[in-house]
């Protein structure tokens, strides 16, 4: 049995890039939501949480329509001479960012809300600029939130399946990620390969969660003492 590593590497690459994008995009969203005192907050929070509830097929369907060469976004991208988005790796990154958005925003928002006003007020009496305050006060204090957001985004993207199946096109080395490869192996009765990949995923998922809970538990203990 020759084992094909390319779906594994592809999934790792996709999850890494998606996590980075989500931390960059998700942090300001979470910050804004955490500070928002307006009736619009609940609708916005619900909007961010949508991928938790929606079947991946709904997301896949709309992405396929919007990103298609004659779709709304597709036309803009085509106009910029960037080619088509579906069936490409960047297309998967876009889909994954939407799909895993709540997994990044919610832990961050919780962490920011947990801080309260006090540390920021203290910092501003010390004449820290808003950006200073964010990076020297908020980020260190919200560390468990960032860790949870990063780990969950990464793990959730690794586990992504339905959306990729709909807009990926199963191209080896480009869009054939781990979960789709497992599906393919199972459906073609190549149980050996399916076993190796599935068992690997099982160990990976357990390890990720174990590390996450252990580290967050230690941080919580350290902060109490």
């Amino acid at each position, binding site marked *: 049995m020759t084992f094909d590593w390319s779906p594994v590497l592809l999934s790792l690459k996709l999850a890494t890039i998606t996590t980075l994008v989500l931390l960059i995009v998700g942090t300001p969203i979470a910050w804004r939501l955490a500070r928002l005192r307006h009736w619009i907050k609940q609708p916005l929070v619900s909007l961010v949480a949508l991928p938790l509830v929606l079947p991946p097929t709904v997301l896949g369907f709309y992405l*396929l*329509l919007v*990103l*298609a*060469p*004659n779709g709304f976004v597709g036309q803009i991208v085509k106009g910029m001479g960037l*080619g*088509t988005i*579906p*069936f490409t790796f960047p297309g998967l990154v876009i889909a994954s960012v939407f799909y895993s958005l709540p997994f990044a925003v919610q832990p961050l928002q919780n962490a920011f809300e947990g801080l309260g006003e006090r540390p920021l007020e203290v910092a501003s009496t010390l004449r820290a600029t808003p950006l200073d305050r964010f990076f020297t006060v908020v980020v260190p204090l919200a560390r468990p939130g960032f860790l949870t957001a990063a780990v969950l985004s990464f793990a959730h993207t690794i586990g992504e399946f339905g959306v990729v*199946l709909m*807009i990926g*096109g*199963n*191209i*080896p*080395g*480009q869009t054939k990620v781990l979960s789709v490869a497992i599906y*393919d192996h*199972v*459906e*073609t*009765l190549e149980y050996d390969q399916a076993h190796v990949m599935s068992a690997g995923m099982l160990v990976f998922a357990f390890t990720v969660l174990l590390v996450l809970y252990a580290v967050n538990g230690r941080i919580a203990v350290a902060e109490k003492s």
Partner: protein
Amino acid sequence: MRMLTRFAKLAVVGLTTAMACASAAGAGEVSVAVAANFTDAMRDIARAFETATGHKAVVSFASTGKIYAQIQNGAPFEVFLAADAARPQKAEAEGLAVPGSRFTYAKGKLALWSATENLFSDGEDYLKTGAFSHAAIANPKTAPYGFAARQVLERLGLWDTLSDRLVRGDTIAQAFQFVASGNADVGLLALSQVLALPAGTGSNWEIPETYYEPIVQEAVLLKKGETNPAALAFIDFLKGGTARNITTGYGYAVE
């Protein structure tokens, strides 16, 4: 506790009513697993079957390879309409199908199709220019139409050069959807799918039948349907004139 008993009673009443309805008046149900390329034809056939016999055909669509894997794992299908002859033969050899019940219900053809009009008249030339970003096929490992598409591309010497631009649909139905939605410029699809569209939609080129091995689609009665009158009636209906007419109407050949 009293609430619970009342609920249980209600559930029992509901269940028995449902079961009584299902077996009423000798009208049975047959569970049919159908290769995705035959979707449009099958919908018509199922409707005609219900009108003619009073039995109901519950139809599941997937790629042939997938259905076969599901049958192997105990899926409750009673009749299997594959897009090749290999899987029904295998099912028979493995004791999953009723021996001697196999027959060819359709012979499929492959077409090169694009949703864009006047994109090509000679599909071979168009494929060789490579003037497209993505071409859709069905997964060659699970879908016989994908396997045939691979043979065509290999014959044209394009399989390797196009490999990173070949989008693989989970079934030939998904491959068709990729092309119809404009996400893939072109696809090697089932002719029946193209013929189900209003005449003259997009660009169509019938791929010469010498470019791929014949797509002989066999049906087989599965062991689970051996004693179900509705399953036997469906097999008979599929061999009859009405079903054959519908099948040829979708661009298939019949024996």
